[in-house]
């Protein structure tokens, strides 16, 4: 009897190949039919600070959430054990490097002072010493199996066999922890080799060396093979995409027909543009897909404004950024609104304000994106709950932008951006490219024709047609006009287009209800809380509370009717909002747009993702007590 669901942490210093371990392991698991989701947590640092991968594996489906405690902690260094030893469940397993057993928590400079003293205090309270050996003792006392191996021995042997320069030996530590994790989970060596081959691709020597490392690990740890064996997979996947949120959005942009992407480097958005650059043009079966001009601009101001320029030339254009960059783009968004220019801004939120927690996640920019930019004009804000939603929503973002000629903000976050998941291949049969292009009427072209809310849009360069654009209030030709009657008509047109979006976009794309209505509670949220919210709803059902999760996908225009209908059906009782922010601002947006008062709120703003265990607990607390606000904060 194995495990159908299992969660683990791989930890080590930033820059030591941890991400490679994640890539290899997730591919090996996917190859054998397991579902994986893995979050990457790291400091704003290139080399040396503690980072870790928090992974959920399932033999039944793609896991939707992360949880604590974990069954397995695989550590590259002592810092990982000190930081996460409390996260291992009793009966779980720790894999560690024997060579660092004497290391004391007080000797590790990369641990932040406040954390170091907290760990030292915790150890003291447990009656343990400050060295790793003492922590191992504590763990064993809790029923954790501790498995040590000398990394040095493995690496020295590798060095001798392959004549590797000692200075580059540390890059093989990743192979040690990947192999030991695979061994403990009961993965076979062929699957592991597949993972190495997929990740190292053409670098055959690296594959050979890592396979050699795996063989050494297998020899050494033979007796532990399959200690945490996963159940035989019941998933029905025959092919899966193994991709991060950044990758998935980039893929969707290519499918959607993106032709211009501008960006200024910022975490956690830049990887999307890198991906697009890699796939900027392809030729398949005689068809050219692309080209996409991907340009690294001098700042985010140039990023948004050049994307708008490309849009005026008739191409699908977008930019990808995070909070600090978005703030710089806001004036451009106002120009796009004024000139009815379609453009998509992919916005990966991170912890603010200012530089905040630059490599950690948040959902604290909801109100700032819904209400960004001066003046009043139609603008749409979309969010996505998971990788697959993000794919379809990216296409939707371009369709809405072009059909209604307005800026669309696709509001995502670092959690989605940096987590890797196994997802089914998107169903392209469902995808439509709706550009809203109508033939230009004969006669003198009026770009801002007032006959309808949506004027016929001709790209710059259309033969025989000329047009003007201006950020000033303008007449139908796009020439400056301050005349009051024209002002009223033009100003209203640009605002009232939003009604069309509200009326025409199908309800299912604006708000989605999960679970059976008529239960005890309604959990409401948006974006990346979806997976953990769904799991928490399932989990709490086991404790006797039946409820639904309402995923608000279109944040602006707010799906007022749709939300009111759901709440009417569920009786308005026990509505709980959850968000990665202090304010849980979706509740305030709902109050403003739909007149709904949501008192109960679950907030997390540590920059770490909401995990299943803490959300279930918090939800139970809000349902069983008078407590309205629960702040959760688990995770290192």
């Amino acid at each position, binding site marked *: 009897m194995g495990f159908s669901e299992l969660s683990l942490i791989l930890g080590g210093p930033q820059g030591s190949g941890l991400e490679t371990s994640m890539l290899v392991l997730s591919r090996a698991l996917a*190859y*054998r039919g397991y579902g994986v989701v893995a979050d990457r947590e790291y400091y704003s640092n290139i080399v040396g600070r503690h980072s870790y991968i928090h992974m959920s594996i399932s033999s039944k489906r793609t896991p939707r959430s992360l949880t604590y405690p974990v069954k397995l902690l695989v550590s590259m260094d002592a810092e990982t054990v000190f930081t996460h030893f409390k996260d291992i469940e009793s009966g779980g397993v720790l894999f560690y490097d024997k060579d660092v057993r004497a290391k004391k928590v007080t000797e590790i400079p990369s641990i932040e002072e406040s954390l170091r003293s907290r760990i030292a205090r915790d150890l003291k309270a447990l009656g343990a010493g400050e060295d790793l050996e003492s922590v191992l003792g504590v763990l064993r006392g809790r029923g954790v199996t501790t498995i040590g191996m000398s990394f040095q021995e493995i690496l020295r042997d590798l060095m001798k066999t392959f004549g590797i320069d000692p200075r580059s030996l540390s890059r093989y530590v990743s192979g040690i922890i990947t192999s030991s994790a695979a061994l403990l989970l009961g993965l076979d060596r062929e699957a592991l080799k597949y993972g190495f081959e997929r990740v190292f691709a053409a670098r055959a020597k690296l594959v050979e060396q890592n396979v050699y490392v795996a063989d050494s690990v297998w020899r050494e740890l033979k007796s532990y093979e399959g200690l945490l064996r996963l159940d*035989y*997979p019941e*998933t029905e*996947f025959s*092919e*899966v995409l*193994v*991709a991060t949120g950044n*990758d998935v959005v980039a893929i969707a942009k*290519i*499918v*959607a*027909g993106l*032709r*211009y992407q501008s960006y200024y480097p910022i975490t956690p958005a830049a990887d999307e543009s890198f991906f697009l650059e890699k*796939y*900027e*043009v392809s030729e398949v*079966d005689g*068809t*050219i*897909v692309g*080209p996409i*001009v991907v*340009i690294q*601009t*001098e700042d985010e*101001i140039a990023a948004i*404004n050049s994307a*708008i*320029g*490309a849009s*005026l030339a*008739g*191409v*699908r*254009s977008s930019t990808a950024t995070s909070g600090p960059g978005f703030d710089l783009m806001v*004036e*451009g968004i106002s*120009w796009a609104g004024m000139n009815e220019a379609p453009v998509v801004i992919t916005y990966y939120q991170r912890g603010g304000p200012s530089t905040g927690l630059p490599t950690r996640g948040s959902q604290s920019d909801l109100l700032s994106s819904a209400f960004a930019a001066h003046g009043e004009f139609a603008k749409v804000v979309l969010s996505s709950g998971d990788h697959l939603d993000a794919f379809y929503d990216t296409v939707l973002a371009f369709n809405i932008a072009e059909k209604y000629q307005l800026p669309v903000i696709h509001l995502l976050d670092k959690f989605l951006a940096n987590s890797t998941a*196994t997802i089914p*291949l*998107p169903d*392209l049969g469902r*995808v439509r*490219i709706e*550009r809203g292009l109508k033939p230009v009427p004969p006669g003198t072209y009026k770009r801002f024709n007032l006959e309808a809310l949506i004027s016929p849009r001709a790209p*710059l*360069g*259309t033969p025989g047609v*000329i*047009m*003007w*654009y*201006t*950020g000033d209030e303008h007449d139908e030709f*796009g020439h*400056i006009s301050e005349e009051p009657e024209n002002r009223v008509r033009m100003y209203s047109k640009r605002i009232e287009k939003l009604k069309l979006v509200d009326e025409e976009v199908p309800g299912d794309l604006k708000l989605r209800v999960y679970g059976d209505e008529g239960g005890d509670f309604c959990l409401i949220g948006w974006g990346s809380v979806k997976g953990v919210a769904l799991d928490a709803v399932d989990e709490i059902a086991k404790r006797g509370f039946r409820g639904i999760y309402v995923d608000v996908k279109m944040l602006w225009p707010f799906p007022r009717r749709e939300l009111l209908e759901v709440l009417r059906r569920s009786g308005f009782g026990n509505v709980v909002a959850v968000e990665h922010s202090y304010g849980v601002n979706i509740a305030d947006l709902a109050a403003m747009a739909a007149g709904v008062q949501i008192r109960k709120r679950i907030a997390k703003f540590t920059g770490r993702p909401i995990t299943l265990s803490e959300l279930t607990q918090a939800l139970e607390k809000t349902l069983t007590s008078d407590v309205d606000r629960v702040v959760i904060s688990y995770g290192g």
Partner: protein
Amino acid sequence: MEGRGVSFKSDVWVDWCPGCGNYGILTAVFKAFAELKLDPSKTVIVSGIGCSGKLPHFVNVNGVHTLHGRAIPFATGIKLANPELTVVVHGGDGDLLGIGAGHFVALGRRNLDIVVILHNNGVYGLTKGQASPTLPLDAKTKALPKPNIQQAVNPIMLAVASGYTFVARSYAFEGEHLKNVIVDAVKHRGAAFVDILQPCVTFNDIFTSEYYRKRVYRLDKDPDWDPVVRKPEERISKMLKAIEKSAEWGERIPIGVFYVDSTVSTYEERLSSRLKVYPKVNPASSVIASEDLRPVVDDVKFKKIFSDLIVRVSKRV
């Protein structure tokens, strides 16, 4: 103005102050566009904010009147998306060298085939005459309560240092010369910059038409002045000469071409070495969907393009 290049004149009333240097610039634009026989539907004037920002409305070609300082980014997006368009930026000195200075430098680095025309009048006119980035230190125009305590930037020097491959100066009321410089700038392949000395009759009582009329002289009258880089090895010495010449200001002010270098690759060429099909197949000319709204990328192509991310499941038997 009437009768000269009238086909490019729009029917929008020109609302600059009587006597403004911008009239000279506008006339030269009409004449240059006519001489170049530009197709109005394939030509785009992109402007920023201020008096110069209104220029596109007066010209019968596509006009994009953008944000303060941001004309160059807009123009960049337009040009890259559709390389068949002729794109000309008009901006003031506050716009291009103050709030938009970063973009001005970036365009030089890219050497994208865009023309930038600077309406250089030393003041922020539409906000009533504040000092602009080209007003010299200690200058006190009539609108300023106190003398200027910020130093001026030298537009020609900055353009050469930034990598523009065509750098020239003209004077708003030297009609024929200005028209010719604009024609050459449009013909040049790569980032072209034209600094136009432009009297502001309302707010700048120092750099007046009388001031310039006495001082400007034409570089092309000097048979020894050769601003053209013919091979890469000449680049540094020609740059230094252009920079030295641009420092000449006071009793004599040179106008004409300071620097031309066609040995540097354009951004379009750099892109085409990467994208191969560009600029022939470009963002504006490429297809993204079929007649029935289906994306070009279907299930079969998807698997081929993104094979690196696809894992074919092989469960153990």
